[in-house]
Structure formats: structure tokens, C-alpha cells
């Protein structure tokens, strides 16, 4: 017995699939090899769908502009910011971040010499491919200074909000 659903299915058979085959159409046999190949440029992957303008991705932090006002720590719902008293800057944990963008709204920023308006220290990038096996890996922690400097200059501190 033909139903409306059946006609719908036949119509869909004639259309192209709706799925965006990102990053590859079928799961590869060996994932690590595929990633290596992509890195070497021997293989190309399908692009993801572009994200809109207001997209909130991984947080970008410019320590130069940070005045150490701790407002972002006050508003952050997930306690993703850690205060480092030695350098009076923050450390951001991407794994704890809930991508609400409140810290960006509240950040006062700093006016460098020669500028008319202050520029915020924090901004939302469009980066969203953040999966990792280790939640403390380097690319999931935004450090205020380069890793060598910040970690050599200070003792391990447990001071946090």
C-alpha cells in the first residue's frame, strides 16, 4: 500500500544526500595514517560548513592587553579561568569553557600607546575542532606567556577561585 511517506522516500532517493561528508566520506581504515597523510598534504579532506559571524569558538587571549582586572574570573560561569598571581594574568582552560562569551563582553581591554580606543584582551575565535584525548594537553590550555617562561618562573600554585 503506497503511503505519503513512501513517495517522500522515493523523492529523497533522487536527491543528493543531505550529509556534509566532513572530514572524509567514509571512515578510513587507518585513522592515524590518514591524519599523517593529510598533514603531509597527500590527501585532502572535505571542508566543514562555514560558521556564522557571531560564532563562539576557542577563546583567544592576548596577555599584552590584559590589565589583570579579574572581571572575567568574576563572571565566568564555569570557572574556566585561573588567576596566576605571580604574573597577574589568567590561564584559560578550554575544556572547562562553556563558550558563553561573557568574559569577552566584560573585558575592558587596554589602550596601547598610539591607539584611540582600548582593544579587548579576550576574543572568540572561529576554531571549533578541539577534540583531544588529554584534557590537560597544550592546545587546550591558553597560557598567558610562553610555556617555558610561565612554568619556570613560578612554583606550582593551587591558588584558584
Amino acid at each position, binding site marked *: 500500500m503506497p503511503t505519503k511517506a513512501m513517495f517522500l522516500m522515493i523523492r529523497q532517493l533522487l536527491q543528493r544526500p543531505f550529509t556534509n561528508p566532513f572530514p572524509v566520506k567514509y571512515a578510513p581504515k587507518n585513522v592515524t595514517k590518514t591524519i599523517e597523510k593529510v598533514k603531509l598534504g597527500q590527501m585532502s579532506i572535505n571542508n566543514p560548513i562555514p560558521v556564522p559571524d557571531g560564532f*563562539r569558538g576557542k577563546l583567544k587571549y592576548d596577555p599584552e592587553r590584559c590589565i589583570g582586572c579579574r572581571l572575567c574570573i*568574576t563572571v565566568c*560561569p564555569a570557572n574556566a579561568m585561573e588567576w596566576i598571581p605571580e604574573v597577574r594574568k589568567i590561564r584559560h582552560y578550554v575544556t572547562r569553557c*562553556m563558550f558563553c562569551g561573557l568574559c569577552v563582553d566584560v573585558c575592558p581591554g587596554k589602550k596601547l600607546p598610539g591607539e584611540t580606543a582600548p582593544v579587548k584582551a579576550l576574543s572568540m575565535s572561529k576554531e571549533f575542532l578541539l577534540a583531544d584525548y588529554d584534557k590537560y594537553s597544550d592546545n587546550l590550555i591558553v597560557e598567558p606567556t610562553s610555556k617555558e617562561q610561565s612554568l619556570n618562573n613560578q612554583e606550582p600554585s593551587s591558588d584558584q577561585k
Partner: protein
Amino acid sequence: MANDKVSKISKRYEIPIGPIHPALKEPIRVEAEVKGEKVVKVDVKRGFAHRGIEYMGMKRNAIQTLYLSERICGICSISHPYAFVLASEKALGIEPPPRAQYIRTIIAELERIHSHILWLGVVAHEIGFDPILFWTWKLREKVLDVLEAITGNRINYAMYMIGGVRRDIKESHILALRDMIDYYRKAADQMKDIFLSDPIYKARTKDVAKLSQDLALKLNIVGPTARAAGLRVDIRQDIPYDAYADIDVRAVVPQDIMGEVNGDAYDATLVRIYEIEQSLDIIEYCINNMPEGKLLAIPNYVALLTTIRKTQGEGIGAHEAPRGEVIHYVKYDGTRDGPVVWKVIAPSYNNINCWGPLLLGAEVADIPVVIAFIDPCLCCNDRIAFVKDENGRVLDYFEIHNMSVNKTMKIKRMLGV
């Protein structure tokens, strides 16, 4: 033990549904005793996802709590902030600017569209109609794209703020919204065609989960489930707020559409499909009559927090979420910048009441339909989990993690891997 089981098998089975079961998307346990295909005894156990989230809110300031409330549930990620914002505004005596009120309404209605389409897909999946699940979720992409363009993310929009909204709706967004409205007007017609005329869908949902008006009133059923039973309840109509006060929103009930009320899963489908159309009308009205003006009553968050610290007051905020009414109670005592008391009542809290009476006497095949037809959201409903070792000592997260790592190692050694 084995003999006991055999003697039981000959007469009655116990079918455990949950905490993990393919028909459930979230943990809850329904223990059903079955005789043949009929359910003869039923017990619902909740609390598997109780996270003590209200306590977490009482430790944070109001802005943090607002975004915490967004994380109560991903699907209702506007409903909880909306109710919290309404409650806080009542408690603090802040009036949001008109433009912000309209934007809030638009976002809330967009969420209703995506939630209802999601439900249509889920209920189709529960009766084994996966192709329709894929189809409805394909339709749902459009509204998610629009939401992403306006708010920045597909889910967890981070849009609301006490005293207004954080982002404006621009001209390009309005174009996208108008395009979306046209798309869903056509899609709603198609959905009516496919769901309401399909013979097997009719056979599986007619007279299943049949809720009488009287029982719905007694069990405090809310939202589309109550409307499917013929009750004219809708917070947008009963206690209008924001832009809903300018629009004459009326509850969608099956007696207005079909002329009769059954209160079954079929009527629930009917109500939800027509509510999608109603939401489209509301969005259209809002974008045609959007007032100009600012977005936030107190634009500075620090100033807002200071105001909260100085204010005493309590408020109840009610919002008609896609699943029913969500109610937040907030109390500020003027000593800290966050709520001292915060209580959330989600629609599923009341709607799960109807599982017991409805499952009794139902067939095993109807269990998923009964469970799905109220659109349960257990993370909204349950909001402390303690794990104890054999001596009754409470274990923390790191110990549990280490225990599971050790167990994996043990199994690996046993298998010789």
C-alpha cells in the same frame, strides 16, 4: 535463583526499562511487570541525573547562575534562562527594554520550533519509523542555522541577560528569519500530510497514552501534553509576559482543529505540528513590529551585580517552554550578588506523573510511545550523586577514575592483552 526465574517466566516477566534503554535518551527507570503483552504493575524511579545544580547556583553570582541554568538542559537551553531572567527581573524590579523583549520572544519561539520537530522525530523513532526521524531532523537544521546565525551557536545560545539580551537581531538575520518562515510553512504542511495520514502512525498512536481531561488536571499535566488532553493551558496565554502580551496567543487544542478530543499521542502530534505554525505567526508578528531601542537595562555587568547585591526580593518566573511550563523561584537577600534560594520546576517534573496511570494496562509495545509522548526531559527534571565504597566511605571523582583505570588493567591482564 535459576528455578525461581523459571517459575516467574511462566507467568509474569519483569521488564526493566532503564536506566539505560534504547527508548530512553536519558536515565530513568521504569519497572514494568508484564503478563503476556500487558503491563500489570508499574513503578517509576527518578533521580538518576540529580546533580544538585540548584546548590551550585547558590554558590555563584547571578550572572554565573543564569548561564548555569542554561546548562540544565541542552534542548531547553532558552527556557531555563528565560524563566530565571523573568524571576530575577521581578525580584530586582528591572524592566527590560521593549526591543529586548521582542528579541527574547523570537528566540524562545525559534527554540519551540526546533524542539517540536525534534519530538516528532523521536516519537517516529520510538515506533520504528527511523526514516521519518532522519527526515524531520533534516528539516530541523534550518532553524538551527538561523539560531546559529543570530546567537553564535547551534545550541546553548548564551543570549539572555538579566534586564535584556546580549545580541541584536540585524537586517541580515531578519531576511534569514523570513526565509525560514516560508520554509517551515511548507514543511508544516508536509508534516501534517505525512504524520497525520500515515496508516501505521495512526494505528500506533491513536488511543495510546490516552489522557482524560480530568486526569490531566489532577496530575498537574502541563504544556502540549495537557493541551492534547483538551485543557486550554498555556503560560503565554494565561500569564502573558514580554512580547506575548501584545500578541493574542491562544492555546492550541485539538477540539479547535479536529472538533474532538482524545488526549492520545496522535492528538499530541497534532497539537505540536499546529504549534509550529503558531510559533511562525508569532515570529512574523515580532519581526514586523519590532521596536527600536537599546538592548540592556543595565549594560554594565559589574553595575548589575552591584545592584543585585543591594537588592532584597523574591520572584517567580514562569515561561512556556516547548515541553510545558518551566518555573523558577529566586530569592535575593541583599547580602550576596547571587540567589540565596533557587528552585527549578521543569515541565517533565509534573508530566512524568502521568506515566504510572497511563502505562498500567498498556501493551509492551506502547511503553516507548507513552514515555516519549510527554517529551520527557530528565536532565530538567532531576537536577547529588554519591558513590560509596563497601565501608560506606564517600569516594570523590579522582578515586572513582583511578578505580576504573585499575579495573580496565585487571581485565586486560586477565585476557592477556
